[in-house]
């Protein structure tokens, strides 16, 4: 499966994931503290420069990933035009797009495995509260492994539906899909126990 990490290596791929995450957190907090339109525009320009420094196709991919924000930006624009406060709307919209872009920048330049390792080390102190790192790693691997398996199963169920019915595939297909997940879980649990179980 494709991750969100950019396949073209940039200088930012080499930076440690923890450092990027820390900078991102500080930057996002700063964005929400800023109210001046000019300062907000400067922050947006900074993120845009960073994205462009990673190459043209990289920046285009990032812009495409922002399309989920379009409805919100449209609503904001209409709302603030109606309030006759275009500058205020522009500041809020710019903050939204800048915050999401900065976060996406970090995601695009960090391999999934690095990020998962970082998350697991961040969660390590929780071991005292009963969250053991080993079962977590196993659950993680199982989940990622079973996504293509269950997508296949869903495809088969859909084909079966189409073979038997002229109607479009409806919600009823969720029921056998859920049942299959439960049965798979039971089988995998048995297989794990047969191999010594999860300590």
């Amino acid at each position, binding site marked *: 499966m494709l991750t969100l990490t950019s396949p073209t290596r940039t200088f930012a791929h080499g930076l440690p994931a923890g450092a990027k995450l820390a900078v991102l957190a500080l930057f996002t907090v700063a964005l929400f503290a800023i109210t001046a339109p000019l300062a907000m525009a400067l922050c947006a320009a900074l993120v845009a420069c960073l994205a462009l420094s990673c190459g043209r196709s990289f920046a285009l991919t990032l812009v495409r990933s922002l399309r989920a924000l379009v409805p919100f930006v449209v609503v904001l624009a209409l709302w603030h035009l109606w309030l006759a406060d275009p500058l205020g709307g522009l500041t809020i919209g710019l903050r939204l797009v800048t915050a*999401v*872009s900065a*976060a996406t920048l970090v995601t695009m330049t960090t391999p999934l495995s690095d990020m998962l390792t970082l998350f697991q080390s961040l969660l390590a102190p929780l071991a005292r509260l009963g969250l053991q790192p080993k079962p977590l790693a196993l659950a993680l691997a199982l989940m990622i492994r*079973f996504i293509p398996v269950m997508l296949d199963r869903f495809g088969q169920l859909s084909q079966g539906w189409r073979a038997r019915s002229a109607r479009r595939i409806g*919600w009823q297909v*969720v029921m056998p899909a859920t049942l299959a997940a439960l049965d798979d879980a039971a089988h995998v649990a048995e297989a794990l126990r047969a191999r010594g179980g999860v300590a």
Partner: protein
Amino acid sequence: MEKNLTQIALFAALIAILGLVPKVDLMSGVPITAQSLGIMLCGTVLGARNGALAVLLFLFVTIAGLPLLSGGRGGFGVLAGPSVGYIIGFPIAAFVTGSIVEFWRVNVGVSAFVGAFIGGFVVLNILGIIGMSVMLDKTLPEAALLALPFAVGDTIKAAIAGMVTQAIARARPEALLSRA
């Protein structure tokens, strides 16, 4: 132990595929994703604790960078966007849904519908609306207006969650952890 773990992992995968499958026509004319149906099912089938853990595992992988949220979203961007309240609300919604199914011992279909509605609609939307009002700098009623178009779809999904849970109670009574 093994069964809890595999159920958590596989239901996390189920949430993911319900978000990836685009063509499920939940009810003609209402464009809704099945992903929040997955959140509700985690609560109604696995119960409060395991359901919430399955959702947390799903979010863990999504925020780390797999584009598994409906619409192919993922990464840290989802925490900086206007839907952050819904993201934070997902595990809480599953927990509330599961608690209601566990403690309200009427017909499992009924309590699953009510649980999914209170957890997956009421609680989730309260948190989602607070999130939107913060991220978009709007008052709470203004943000609530943005969430309104999805109310019909969410009610339908709660009803589907109830029916699917009832069917599972009939087919695999021993697997229904929320009533174990």
